[in-house]
């Protein structure tokens, strides 16, 4: 497989699976993206409102025993993810500042929806205890019933909402 263009879906998916396997072998846990982002936002809020964040019913656990919220496995994974995607795009000449959107969408429309979609996903990922990577993929491979229900509901929710935002994409 040459590196000058994107891979077909099956080998690309297998490589994601390989990163999951390595995490199980080394750390005994899966990969994940949303956990690191939650820790990051807890750390930012702690910088602004230290007392309230430490006492928070949800974020407080990241600061238990004077721990630093960023000194955690999921944060190191995110650092690697960032570098890995950058290197892959750089090797294929795909590094470019741009706003991706469908042919009928304006930049402003896309930006507003990207922000709104982010807010919904951020809330949903915390409610479900994970996102696509750590929950659906890792939990799915572990045969977790909750992960399979989560994954089916992702596609159901996406298909339900697709019609309303079709001008953004097609």
């Amino acid at each position, binding site marked *: 497989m040459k590196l000058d263009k994107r891979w077909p*879906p*099956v*080998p*690309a998916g*297998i490589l*994601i699976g390989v*990163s999951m*396997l*390595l995490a199980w072998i*080394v*750390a*005994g*846990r*899966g*990969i994940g*993206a949303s956990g690191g982002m939650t820790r990051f*936002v807890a750390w930012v*809020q702690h910088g602004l409102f230290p007392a309230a964040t430490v006492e928070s019913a949800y974020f407080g656990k990241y600061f238990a025993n004077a721990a630093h919220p960023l000194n955690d*496995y999921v944060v*190191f994974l*995110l*650092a*690697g*993810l960032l570098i*890995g*995607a950058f290197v892959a795009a750089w090797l294929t000449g795909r590094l470019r*500042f741009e*706003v*991706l*959107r469908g042919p009928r969408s304006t930049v402003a429309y*896309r*930006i507003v929806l*990207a*922000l*709104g*979609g982010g*807010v919904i*996903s*951020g*809330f*949903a990922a*915390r409610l*479900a205890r994970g*996102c696509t*990577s750590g*929950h*659906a993929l*890792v939990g*799915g491979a572990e*045969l977790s*019933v909750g992960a399979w*229900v*989560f994954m089916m509901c*992702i596609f159901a*929710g*996406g298909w339900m*909402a*697709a019609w309303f935002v079709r001008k*953004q*994409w097609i």
Partner: protein
Amino acid sequence: MDMIAPLVKTGVIDAATNLWLAIPIGFIFGFALFHAGFTDSRRIAWAFYFKDVGVPVVMFSAIVTGMLGLWGMSLIGFIDISKVYMLPTYLLPMAIGGLLFGIGMVVGGYCPGTAIAAFATGKIDGIVFIVGFLIGSLIFGDFFPVWGDFYNSDYMGAFRLDQWLGIGLGPTVLLIVLAAVAGSLFLRQVQYRFWSAKEAHPKAEQVLKLQGGLIATAVVIAIVLAFFETPSFIDDTVEPPHYIVPRN
């Protein structure tokens, strides 16, 4: 027999080394996300219009690889499955979370991991999605008492599909592999039926052979696994450690 994996739980490596090894593992994950086309929000969103069903195909491939690898390594005694963190099930919160997450995905065009990968490749909508995601996480955490009870409801412990179906773990693995292959082929047909026909790929035949070979390998491994009894995958004599949530 002493199993050597997970390395950090069996004492082969220390906690600090484990932390640093997360970086190369994340690197592979990010590298693969790019090659899966997941740094392009259009490609992710198009899955919900059947315009490009690459997203579910990649997801199925990753799950099948992880599933065959994890349970296969447990079967041959390489990894101590009782030391692997298993995702517990909170049925209703996960179902509602999934519905909302799907809406967020088609509206925003990303999920967290893909948004970070897209940001790394310069996609401005990726960083905007990340900002939104952080705000959403913050809302959940800061108003946690409002939905905390719901969040912790409908708890079922570490509940696996094979236990739910009442069949063996091996046959369940085989069923999932077959469903993934059938689902992928079906979704592709829907894509070709409603959107433009197959784009002419210069190496179409090579790609077909490669992917067909990989899928055939997975099916063969799954058929082999289907012949083993569930206890051979999970050593029941091992006491589950505290971080594995027992079923109640």
